[in-house]
């Protein structure tokens, strides 16, 4: 089993105990969905900044929400919707990044889910 930590190691571990304050009462996923309530463009970097978490974690949450049917990935290339299109060679969508939109389930969760009264979790 792990040895007892010392020095810088112990200071780093303090970060484990501090709650993620930006998550608020509704939890980090709820806080992310909350930010999608209002229309407009968001990047994972924007969301990460607002939620005070890493961009990689926002990516993980987005992937999870997509798997659970709250978000839907939109075609990042024209291959899906335009397979029969003779002009797809002139399509410029290929260079855009991946995108996601709320599904009806995600929209409902973003707009109607009541915030619970939970404290931030600690071990």
């Amino acid at each position, binding site marked *: *089993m*792990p040895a007892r*930590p010392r020095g810088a*190691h112990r200071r*780093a*571990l303090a970060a*484990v105990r*501090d*709650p993620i304050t930006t*998550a608020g009462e*509704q*939890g*980090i996923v*709820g806080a992310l*969905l909350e930010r*999608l309530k209002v*229309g*407009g*463009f*968001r*990047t994972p970097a924007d969301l990460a900044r607002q939620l005070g978490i*890493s961009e*990689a*974690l926002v*990516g*993980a*949450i987005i*992937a*999870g929400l997509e*798997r*659970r049917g*709250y978000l839907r990935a*939109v*075609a990042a290339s*024209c291959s899906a*919707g*335009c397979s029969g*299109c003779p*002009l797809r060679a*002139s*399509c*410029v*969508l*290929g*260079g*855009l*990044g*991946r*995108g*996601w*939109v*709320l599904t009806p389930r995600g929209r409902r969760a*973003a707009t109607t*889910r009541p915030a*619970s*009264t*939970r404290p*931030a*979790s600690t*071990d």
Partner: protein
Amino acid sequence: MTVTQGAATRQITVALAGQPNVGKSTVFNMLTGLSQHVGNWPGKTVEQKTGVHYARGEEGVEIKLVDLPGTYSLTADSPEERVARDFVIKERPDLVVLIVNVAALERNLYLLAELLALPAPVVVALNMLDVAERRGIHVEPAVLESALKLPVVPMIAVKNQGVRELVQVILRTARDPAGYAPSRPQIDPEQQRVAQELERLVAPAVPAPYPHDWVALKLLEGDTEISQMIRERLSPSEWEQVDALLLRHEDAILEIASSRYEWIARMVRAAVSRPRVGQVVLTDEIDRVATHPFWGLLLVLAILGAVFWLAYAIGAPLQGLLDTYFVEGGASWLHQVLAGAPWWLSGVLADGVLAGAGTVITFLPILLIFFAVLALLEDVGYMARIAYVMDRYMHLMGLHGKSFFPLLLGFGCNVPAVLGTRIIDSPKARLLTILVAPLVPCTARMAVVTVLAPIFFGAAAFWVMWALVGLSLATLALTGVLLHRFAFGGKHAAFIMELPLYHLPNVRTISLAVWQRTVAFLKKAGGIIVVLSVLVWVLATFPTREMETSYLAAIGRSFAPLGAHLGLDWQMIVALLTSFVAKENTIATLGILFTSGRGGTDLAANLAPTVTPAAGLAFLVVQMLFIPCVATVAVIRQESGGWKWALVDLGLLLVISLSAGAIVYRVGTWLHAG
């Protein structure tokens, strides 16, 4: 822990878990070597691999390794996930080794959060440390180990680093199962209470060896397999109670997932640092300007300006050269070669196909510039920023990032723009986007304007092109605002989009994109445009072999009242009408009408004196805002669900384009006279 105790050997069963592409197979192959057995999981089509490892210096100990299928989570979403969790629950391995890709630590730790709810000790193998370091991700394995309160082994499996240490940790953990007390994500008290209530309701129906609390948690998460299993074991009235409770907490998964992600966030905050280096810093620096509300827009406009300048300064002269040597030279050569052939043959080939479709092919230098710039912007990662910057301005017309996606496509071609609206959920927003999509100037329209503007306006052509694109986009915005305000309404949708990191352009990728688009253009020029060129030539030649008394002249003159409002004669009106088949036909038609029988084959020389500046500008304005080509109309009909909206759109665009043209002509004439 159950450790199989043989007469001479002790067997430790270890399950290797992990997400796909984390190097799990590499670790498995290194540990098992030639002792692998490959088959299928019982009753499944999922491959099962098992093998044995004998640790050096550990006589009488056999480590049996079972390679679980790669899974992102442990919900019953796929056969792989069911196989993986069933093995841990039913076979109770002595240990689960979770192989983690450090470069994607957050995603991988979610699987750990789920594994920790199962009844088996977990050891984490931090793999691909080298890949993570290269991406500027620095992980402290010792800190992570203290934070997780379970053994963590750093490794680079492909270099055989850390594999021996992993074996030692496996043996040590298997010997001392009592010391295993990891940090687990705690769900919030409200969900905890619901989970306990559920556990109480379903406990009698949970078959062995499923842990009751895990089953309750999975029910709350909406796990279909567990729901089915419990439903079959409860009476209908008992299930009704469970179902009602679940329905009241339909989105409990969001709370449960939140607690796991927050747990991950705290672990990562302690053990991972990401000093921003290289591409990331470069991207941040460039994006400070490129995604700025004001400077970003200015950059978009500057790039647009640069494209026009390139098209005008380089593309147009090359187009002129092609016109001189390919179309004019080719026509006189054809006339010579076909001197003895019937008049109509040299006529249709030289004055029809070559003057029409041939002239369209002279666009190529201009199109190559458009194609190359589009491909370059795509490849370096800038294209997505245009959508991001423009989103702010799309708000004004009720369109959002998601609508801008398809509209951005429109700069290439309006057809994929209309098809691209499928990504918009709201039917109203989708229809609105379809209706305004033809106002985005496509490359074909831009090429026509790039050819004609210098003929009408000489050196001022660059500024005219700028103004025309500005007019198109302003009309698009204004139409959108009006349609949104008076005809539609509805809520705005949010859209998440990843902005790719900037990188140096790849010549091969850009060349390929330019090549594909060029081939598509040449096919179009060689197909529909050749057919229409022949048709225009036939109509302009018969029945009298005199253009002024031809069928086409008759058709064109029937539009004379319209032409009068725009200051255009019948040839120009016909050129405009033929653009309905394909935008390039404007040039093809002008090529035929202004070169045959006019004592010279230079389109520019013949066309320029016949059009006043006011009429020329009116013509270009109508050309930019005119009804889209027939292919676009066909997809508008298809995507809007019938002719109704396609006809509304055609009517709308006709009114807009002709009114704008008439206003420009009147004002232009007045200014010129003044």
